[in-house]
């Protein structure tokens, strides 16, 4: 039993980093543009399909396919921002409506292009690691490590670069940041594009672990929003920790409780946290 629990702790953490990378996008977008971008799930789906297509159809090496997928999704994010989201800045309801519309349009397009038949990428890194009686697929551990690095780099970029500090300043006091020379429009567009690129990156890595279908992003974006709220909107490390907490809660909960309600375990945990800390685990005082 101890092995089973240990295995699910590790697996939950790995799955949680995937929630975390999308949660990071949700958190950044909301902090800077005032939009809860539920469409990040479909950008994740686009990244996954792009990586699969580049790898399995065009036979590109996987790292190149990931880079290509991220570039494609970032470009799609920029187009979506310029055509749609730009007009919904700081308008929660309109932003939500636009993102829901975008989900329907992009999922429908993916269905037309790739049908509902699941696509599965060839195994990029086959084999497993054995340690302490645990069996973990090598690719899963690799994805875990890459995502941790990506989130850490984002944290560094936000704290060590001018653009990152400008984003923090803008999130704290938009007017003051503008007076100090922060170019609002460029910053908001940059954050939108970066968030969609993160979602595309998550999707490209996801494609190496799981099968693809056009609706794959919907579950992940919901978990990401949960993770972002759990952590407290605006916290970078919190997004990761929130994702991991959700993943671990689901994994370990499934051992002791009925598996059929796995998604509920994370939600129960979220409600419990919000009852005692309404701004989330890492959020500031409200």
């Amino acid at each position, binding site marked *: 039993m101890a092995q089973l629990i240990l295995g699910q702790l590790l697996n939950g953490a790995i*799955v949680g980093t995937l929630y975390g990378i999308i949660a990071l996008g949700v958190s950044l977008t909301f902090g800077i543009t005032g939009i809860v971008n539920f469409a990040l799930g479909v950008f994740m789906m686009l990244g996954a399909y792009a990586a699969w297509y580049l790898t399995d159809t065009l036979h590109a090496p996987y790292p190149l396919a990931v880079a290509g997928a991220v570039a494609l999704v970032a470009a799609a994010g920029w187009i979506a921002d310029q055509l749609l989201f730009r007009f919904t800045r700081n308008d929660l309801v309109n932003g939500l409506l636009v993102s829901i519309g975008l989900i329907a349009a992009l999922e429908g397009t993916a269905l037309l292009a790739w049908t*509902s038949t699941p696509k599965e990428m060839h195994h990029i890194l086959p084999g*497993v690691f054995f340690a302490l009686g645990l069996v973990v697929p090598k690719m899963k551990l690799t994805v875990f490590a890459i995502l941790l690095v990506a989130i850490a780099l984002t944290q560094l970029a936000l704290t060590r670069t001018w653009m990152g500090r400008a984003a923090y300043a803008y999130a704290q006091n938009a007017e003051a940041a503008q007076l100090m020379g922060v170019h609002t429009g460029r910053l908001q567009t940059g954050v939108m594009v970066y968030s969609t690129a993160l979602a595309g990156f998550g999707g490209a890595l996801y494609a190496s672990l*799981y*099968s693809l279908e056009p*609706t794959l992003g919907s579950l992940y974006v919901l978990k990401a929003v949960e993770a972002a709220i759990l952590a407290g909107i605006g916290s970078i490390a919190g997004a990761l920790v929130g994702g991991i907490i959700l993943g671990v809660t689901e994994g370990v909960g*499934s051992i002791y409780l*009925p598996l*059929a*309600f796995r998604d509920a375990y994370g939600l129960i945990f979220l409600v419990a946290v919000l009852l005692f800390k309404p701004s989330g685990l890492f959020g500031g005082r409200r």
Partner: protein
Amino acid sequence: MGMRRSAALIAAAALAALPAGGAVAQEVVKIGQIEAQTGPLATYGWMGYQGVKMAVDEINRAGGFTVAGKKYRLEQISPDTRANPQEALIQLKQLLENDKVRFVFGPFLTNVFNGIEPYATQNNGKFLLMGGATAMHGMLGKPNHDYLLRTWNWDAGQSGFGQLLVDYLKKQGAKKVAMLFQNDAFGKVAVDIYSPIFKQAGIELQVELFEPGTKDFSAPLAKLGAGKPDYLFPGYTDAVLYDIVRQATETGLFSRFFLVRGSLAPGLKNKEAIDDYIAYLPKYFEEAEKKEPKVKAFVAAYKAFFKTSDFPYDQAPLCSSSCYDHVYMLVEAMKRAGTVDDVAKIKKELMSMTYSGLWNIRYDSTGEAVFDFDVVHMKKGGVVTATHVQPK
């Protein structure tokens, strides 16, 4: 010369204005279809939609069909239920009340059937509903359910493919099986169907239900694997089968699989790590295409009609339910009954005939289809043997 040219032009224009097949004087028989064409469960409606479309087109291009001296052509009306029972109910109401449809194909999904069943029952006698949903089985022959015909083989019973597969599994030496299914309407029905079959066969059954949409099966696989079962009996859609089979083999928890729904593709994808992959397939198209001229012709027609070089071998077996053959079968029943309106007479003809198309299809006394199928056994490396079964 000028007049002759003008007359020729007028004639050409008149011909061009005629619908294909010169069917201007033909009346229309509408075939409604309520299947999921999009969403995660679209697998079960997608092939049915395509097969009906092909058959309707073929029949219309051949000039339609004649019933009691009158020419008819077909019209397909296929809204997308997206596997949503509420949407399907509205669509069925529109089909029956606005479009005056008397023949409805589908649904394949149990949750959709459960959603439309009360309304459909209120309209008993006005139409025929020909679907594959497992939940239809329990309604066949019940009062006010004359409208029902189930177009898929039943799992249990003497002719049941499930019964036969479990018997086959027992011969392979299985003593313990782990069932990992979706926690949804069909998942629960599947547990109800298979629990007694396994019990009767003396095979121990462990059951775990998971939330639909799950992609990471590490937790349930580890939990089930701890019980050391001989075979894993995983969920019913390829959307989950790809992930379950991959994760189960990758971690070495399972190498033997038993399936009653879903395709061979997830097994083939992981063929090097699999010892046994035993599956019910309404037809193993890869093999049948080589042996059966009708199947070969269908594959070629599909490619030409949809202008594609890829035939969906993994999805095609699902054309055994409310699909291509069933359109031809319905037309034949209308011809025999001498009516396109009297649904009771048409149902009687359907129940009395054996149709030989891609499948040999007949209905039993309750209105449930019985057709030939394949038991496919894939071994390590992807060696596939298919045993063709013609149920009694």
